[in-house]
């Protein structure tokens, strides 16, 4: 399988001149700086508007598709499997199960933090299996948190809610057997 042609002629370096952060900081590598003005205000639409309103009321809401009988959470106005409009609003519980999680020592800008953030996906009771949302976990430790743990939402008091997923502070463990 030996080819006569080399990937690159012998002795010819592969292209690319490396720069270091120091060169940039010292100004020995010329730069042009620009900050784009990129602002958006996304219309939440039918499904998400109701979802956010209900969060402000301290409730989680889903949509049901009568064709596949799934209870879809987060709610959506069309079922992506059946490709038809969904049929009715259905409340789901604010308890669930940890499907997966991480213990993060990084913030959103990749800076190190000492107090870890517990985050993951919680599948919500009342919705179809494994349908859930990403959120924080609280009142847990690295040792106690596990996949399969039963959890319940801890809500902010009503005056503090704004119609956001952050109206839930975090999900906390509940003793097995209780909902």
């Amino acid at each position, binding site marked *: 399988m030996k080819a006569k042609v080399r990937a690159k002629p012998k002795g010819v370096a592969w292209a690319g001149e490396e720069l270091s952060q120091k060169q940039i900081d010292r100004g020995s590598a010329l730069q*042009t700086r620009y900050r784009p003005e990129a602002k*958006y*205000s996304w*219309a939440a*639409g039918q499904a998400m508007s109701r979802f956010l309103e209900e969060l402000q009321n301290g409730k989680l809401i889903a949509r049901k598709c009568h064709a596949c009988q799934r209870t879809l959470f987060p709610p959506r*106005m069309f079922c*992506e499997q059946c490709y038809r409009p969904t049929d009715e609003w259905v409340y789901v519980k604010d308890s669930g199960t940890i499907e997966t999680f991480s213990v993060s020592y990084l913030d959103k800008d990749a800076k190190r933090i000492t107090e870890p953030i517990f985050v993951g996906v919680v599948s919500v009771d009342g919705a179809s299996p494994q349908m859930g949302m990403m959120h924080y976990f609280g009142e847990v430790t690295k040792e106690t948190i596990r996949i399969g743990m039963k959890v319940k939402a801890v809500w902010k008091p009503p005056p503090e809610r704004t119609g956001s997923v952050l109206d839930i502070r975090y999900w906390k463990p509940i003793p097995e057997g209780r909902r």
Partner: protein
Amino acid sequence: MRVAIVGIGMTPFRPSTPEFSWKELMYDAATRAYADAGVDPRKDVGSFVTCAEDYWEGFGIFDEFVPDQLGAAMRPTCTVSGDGIQGLAQGAMQIQSGLFDVVAVESHSKASDLLTYPHIVQHALDPILNKPLRGHPNYLAGLEMDAYLRASGLTARDCAAVIAKNRTNALRNPFAAYPSKLTADEADRSPPQFDPLRALDQAALADAGIVLVLASERKARRFAATPVWLRGFGWGTDSPNLEARDWTTAKYAEIAAAAAYKMAKVTKPERAFQVAEVDDRFSYKELEHLEAAGLSKKGETARRLKRGDFALNGGLAVNPSGGSLGCGYILDASGLHRVAEVALQLRGEAGSRQVDRARNGVAVSWRGIPTATGGVAVLGVGK
């Protein structure tokens, strides 16, 4: 192997759509297209192509947010960071390569969600040479209009006639967002903003969604509607560098048209079509594109325009839909809008804006400032 358009879905163009999220807007356009084609996307559509740019939408990877509303969950789906005709071409090639029989191509504008549109257009400029000049990027259209008018002999008054034609044509188009009984005199008096570019020379933004369903020749005749054959298509890019570019000719349209006409075996484009939908994001672009695509010979365009050749039943209806000036400019989806309107004309489904005996049509698109990229699609019905 030929490819046909067998489904067309278009939502009404609106200055804003606060009641819908972008997903719901896409769902609307797709539902209409699939109903028109009589297909279930979960069973009958093999692949999905969306034409989108992150910065129009406000996301880091817009591709993530497209499948569910198109019926594309767990299906081959991709994003073309290009305009509607480039997307259409990818869909057609997917069919011609033998991979699929039916492909859906989508594009939309949710410009109303974008609060800083001119800044995003500016963000497309060369970071070292052009961005530092700041300013509203439409000054580039002003420069180009000036260069083009000087080189072509056309005038700002001719451009005003284009504005009047398209805004008035839009009165017959129930999908249009900006219909207006405007005269050329009124348009001519529009205040200059990037002299010679006036306020009314610039199409206003709109929200809308468009989906086309393409099918291979062997499947095309099974669909309800008359297949509209994609006889030829092409696209091209001139220099991205403003300083190195030809400012007096839409070179990308020449390249795209040459490729499309070759494929479609069109040798005399100025006589081959009854209808042309040609990008008019700025009024002068319509004239520039007509010439670059060989639909009007240089030196004759002013006379033909005045004579009414480009009116609804003047022989070559140009932008009977109202174009972007009359319907609203829907960003990269405007290329698909051009094609959709030609297809509706060729099917005889263009209502009160129908062009008599339209059998062959052409769509010419442009990606807008600061690009030098556009596409051409040649469509026809019959054999």
